[in-house]
């Protein structure tokens, strides 16, 4: 039913512009895999190459172990959900859903039955005879999913399908998509620029920048152990400090910056131009200086965000650092102008190469 996908050294050039640059990744059968990156990073091109609308300039794409070279989109075991959904406005919903079956010569009664089953699956019973224009954004979304599922694809390809929905609906559809994927067991490949979506839904995430795959890992590792500055700053917030490594080696190293020397984790690839990355939620605010990795700041701004409180502190040389305190009732909110210290755990800070993107 579901199939794995191998991208083997795939490149795609548009004229002199290399949209996809030597991408290698093995996506497991039944996996929910997201390509995450800013617009123009090549993620949509990857999707179009897998679905067959664009040919790779070099490299191979295999679906279920079978080389897809020369296979037209209508010959591939994939179903693509377009960013704008591309439902057929002149057909009623049930014909939209069963279009892929109509193409395969299935008789009308069977098609109708299958369409109704799929409508039940996506939680839209009784919508079969409506027209596309009568549905809301979220309902259209479900119809698009049902239409793609109708052809029983081994791989579903989704091109930012939630980007047109409002926030609440988007969060609801995230859970829905994940549930449908689990129920059907189909391999999902999901394209998005929204890190929240990618982290919340995926088994694994591939972060892309400038046509290259920067890191492939599960959401937790992407967030906690980014391999470079691009991944660290594209996924989540950071306090970024330029500086240089003092005693390189494995594990923890000293890092000299304009506001002091700190101890932090040194990534394997840390060479050349590196910076120190500390997430705001890993910063702690103390009244007195901490044992290590402590820097005195003047509280400049406090903003209350609901579930957390963001405190901005300015160091003696004018560098701004941000700490986010969980709003669990125990946090003491400092007043602007207060002299305090910001510290962080060496294990929670990373020295990362600044090579790509950002």
């Amino acid at each position, binding site marked *: 039913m579901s199939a794995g996908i191998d991208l083997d050294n795939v490149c795609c050039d548009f004229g002199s512009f290399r949209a996809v640059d030597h991408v290698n990744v093995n996506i497991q059968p039944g996996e929910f895999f997201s390509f995450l990156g800013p617009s123009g990073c090549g993620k949509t091109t990857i999707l179009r190459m897998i*679905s*067959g*609308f664009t040919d790779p300039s070099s490299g191979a794409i295999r679906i279920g172990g079978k080389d897809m070279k020369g296979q*037209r*989109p*209508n010959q591939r075991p*994939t*179903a*693509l959900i*377009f960013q*704008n959904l*591309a*439902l*057929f406005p*002149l*057909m009623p919903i049930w014909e939209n859903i069963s*279009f*892929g079956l*109509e*193409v*395969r010569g299935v008789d009308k009664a069977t098609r109708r039955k299958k369409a109704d089953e799929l409508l039940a699956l996506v939680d839209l019973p009784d919508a079969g005879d409506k027209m596309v224009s009568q549905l809301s954004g979220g309902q259209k979304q479900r119809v698009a999913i049902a*239409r*793609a599922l109708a*052809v029983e694809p081994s791989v579903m390809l989704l091109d930012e399908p939630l980007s047109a929905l409002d926030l609440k609906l988007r969060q609801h559809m995230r859970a829905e998509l994940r549930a449908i994927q689990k129920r059907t067991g189909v391999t999902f490949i999901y394209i998005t620029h929204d890190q929240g979506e990618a982290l919340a839904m995926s088994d694994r995430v591939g972060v892309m920048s400038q046509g290259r795959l920067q890191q492939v890992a599960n959401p937790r590792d992407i967030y906690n152990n980014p391999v470079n500055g691009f991944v660290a700053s594209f996924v989540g917030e950071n306090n970024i400090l330029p500086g240089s490594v003092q005693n390189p080696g494995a594990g923890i190293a000293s890092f000299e910056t304009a506001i002091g020397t700190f101890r932090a984790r040194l990534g394997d690839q840390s060479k050349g131009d590196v910076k120190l990355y500390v997430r705001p939620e890993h910063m702690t605010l103390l009244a007195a200086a901490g044992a290590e990795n402590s820097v005195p700041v003047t509280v400049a701004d406090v903003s209350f965000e609901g579930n957390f409180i963001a405190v901005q502190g300015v160091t003696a040389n004018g560098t701004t650092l941000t700490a986010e305190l969980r709003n669990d009732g125990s946090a003491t909110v400092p007043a602007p102008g207060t002299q305090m210290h910001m510290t962080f755990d060496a294990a929670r800070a990373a020295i990362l190469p600044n090579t790509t993107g950002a």
Partner: protein
Amino acid sequence: MQDLLRRYGAALTAAFILLTGFWLLVLVILPNITLFEASFRPYLPVVDVGGPRDTYSLNNYAKILDNSVDGSILGIPVHMPVHILTFLLTITYSALVTILCFCLAYPLAFYLSKVVSPRSLPTLFLMLFVPLWVSEVLRAFAWYIILALKGPLNWFLLTLGLIDAPVRWIAGYDGIIIGLVYTYVLFMVFPIYNAIQSLDTNQIEAADDLGASWWRIHWRIVLPHSKPGIASGAVMVFMLSAGSLLVPSLLGSPNSNWFTQTIQQWMLESQDWNTGSAYAFMLLILCTVFVSLVMRLFRVKLTDIAK
């Protein structure tokens, strides 16, 4: 109206409205009313006009039922009044012209709107438009020369060895059909082009991705979407063809007769403007009825076309 005033000021707005009104009233409505009124009156010597014999009747319209003859429409033998036969032949061949125009225009319109790169579009449009800059008379004459028995087309086909003897192209209604298709095909291309242009390319790709063959993509996605464009193109081509006088006169053969030629004979040769007017209105009304019936058959509404 308010918008017009704000944008162009009172003087220009007044000019727009007056000119449009003048065109509509003096050049369209008044002449038609005059002819319509005349069509119910008998053709009389000048001294009798306005006299006791000048009364309204349907006699002019009834003339279409005179003189039954034997003839054939698309090979089916018929026996009916000669002018009705001419009318039926006119709408039959106009319908054929419309179908031929569609067959030529649809692939071209699809190619222009979805296949060709936007950069070469201006050049292609220019190539389509250039023939329109030449007068219709000249174009019809050009075809008269091309289709002549010893003309370039026959020479070309003979040289290539595709035919053994020259073909008499201007025979029966063949010349008229060729001429009308050439003259009016663009009226079919542009509405369909506009319609297909507005189709989201993702829909074509979605159908492709779901496994549809190219003909099914056209049958289920592109054709239904372009139906309003096809309808407006078809109405234009059909009405223009049925109302064309120049092409049937120049490219017709001794055994072809177009209804407009019958009207012309009444008007110019018989000098009977009253009967000519009656025939002209019959052409207008019957064509409108025919078009409405066909539109109903294909489930197209007038509002779709207006889009």
